[in-house]
């Protein structure tokens, strides 16, 4: 169970979010540009500070006295630009966050799952948008996160490919039963992948039944 109750003053508005996520649940967050969707993910990942509390099972990630660094939070963050390391191959990117980097069986399994076994020695600049996304997702999953945060994962993808990639993403998330928060301005992304939806309206996070 992840319990979130945070407040942050933004440049032109504010962000208030209070909600709980059960393990394995997939939450979608929609809202217009600048409403604080990405900021909420960054706060959860420890990349930005805010007021309030974040509790994950028995661990406190943030309260009045505690602020865990991003390194100490078990978060898999899929950045909008994927943030693949340009100096590393597909395989090296996947290995980077693993506790046991010698666990070659796990890497092979992931390369199989993301269908990039043949491209394992490629650098990210040789990959298509969809392939980059799969590497970034695989890398995040191999770091054994307690929560997966997806920031506009399809914003850089052609509309024709979107449907295929949504299906692939959902298959991978379901396979690992990952607790997920997906942020998107596209309601279709959310409907396809998430089982609970919130919308940020005037800085408040509202549940959409």
């Amino acid at each position, binding site marked *: 169970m992840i319990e979130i109750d945070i407040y942050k003053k933004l440049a032109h508005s504010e962000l208030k979010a209070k909600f709980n996520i059960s393990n394995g649940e997939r939450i979608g967050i929609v809202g217009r540009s600048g409403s604080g969707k990405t900021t909420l993910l960054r706060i959860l990942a420890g990349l930005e500070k805010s007021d309030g509390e974040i509790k994950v099972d028995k661990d406190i990630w943030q309260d009045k006295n505690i602020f865990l660094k*991003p390194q100490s939070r078990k978060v898999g963050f899929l950045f909008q630009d994927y*943030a693949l390391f340009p100096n590393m191959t597909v395989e090296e990117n996947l290995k980077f966050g693993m506790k046991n980097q010698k666990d070659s069986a796990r890497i092979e399994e992931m390369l199989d799952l993301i269908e990039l076994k043949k491209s394992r020695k490629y650098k990210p600049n040789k990959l298509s948008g969809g392939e980059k996304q799969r590497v970034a997702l695989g890398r995040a999953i191999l*770091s054994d996160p307690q929560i997966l945060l997806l920031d506009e994962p399809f914003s850089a993808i052609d509309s024709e490919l979107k449907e295929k990639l949504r299906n692939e993403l959902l298959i991978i998330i379901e396979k690992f039963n990952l607790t997920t928060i997906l942020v998107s301005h596209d309601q279709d992304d959310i409907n396809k992948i998430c089982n609970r939806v919130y919308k940020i309206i005037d800085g408040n996070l509202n549940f959409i039944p």
Partner: protein
Amino acid sequence: MDLNNFINSDFLSTVLLTIKLAFLTTSILLIIGTPIAYWLSSTSSRIKPIIETAIAMPLVLPPSVLGFYLLLLFNPEAGFGKFIETVFSVRLAFSFEGLLIASVIFSLPFTIHPIQNGFKSLPKSLREASFSLGKSTFQTLIYILIPNIRPSILTASIITFAHTVGEFGVALMIGGNIPNETRVASLALYDEVESLNYDIAHVYALFLFLLTFIILLIMFRINKTEN
């Protein structure tokens, strides 16, 4: 001294000393300059403008001003200079060690600015992705950030090296033109011109001209290949 004898003796030792000074200055600056450049590229601290100004000062400050203050600082009879001499038995004024410290300070912007610009050019998400994958700032620097700004590191190294080779004002104030200790090629050239030894001055001038040309050429070739 005829030209042949000179090339076999004074010239070689001066050239070696010049290259040794430039090599050590560049190495020290890469080690201390890279973390400073990273800090400057990622911080929003209030003291950042002050530190940036201090680092950029050698770009516009007459070298003799910096040389003068360092000479006072290195005075073996008082303060810092006395402390270093007492504790480490190293005299900084008119010594190679003092010249090295002065060169490091004077070349700071030539190392830090290209590396800082390199860090700034990288997407912030690379650093944040590494942090989210559990890596410390040091690991992120070593495995992600530095390997992805290789052209900037190379530019910083080469410009620092070339700048140190060509440095004159600080070397004159701090070094004192002592053979085998602080007499670098730029000082030797000046000395030989003053003594009207134009043949020998030509050798130094040509050496500095060619060395600077070659290292800049190497930098442009490598940067072209990297791009």
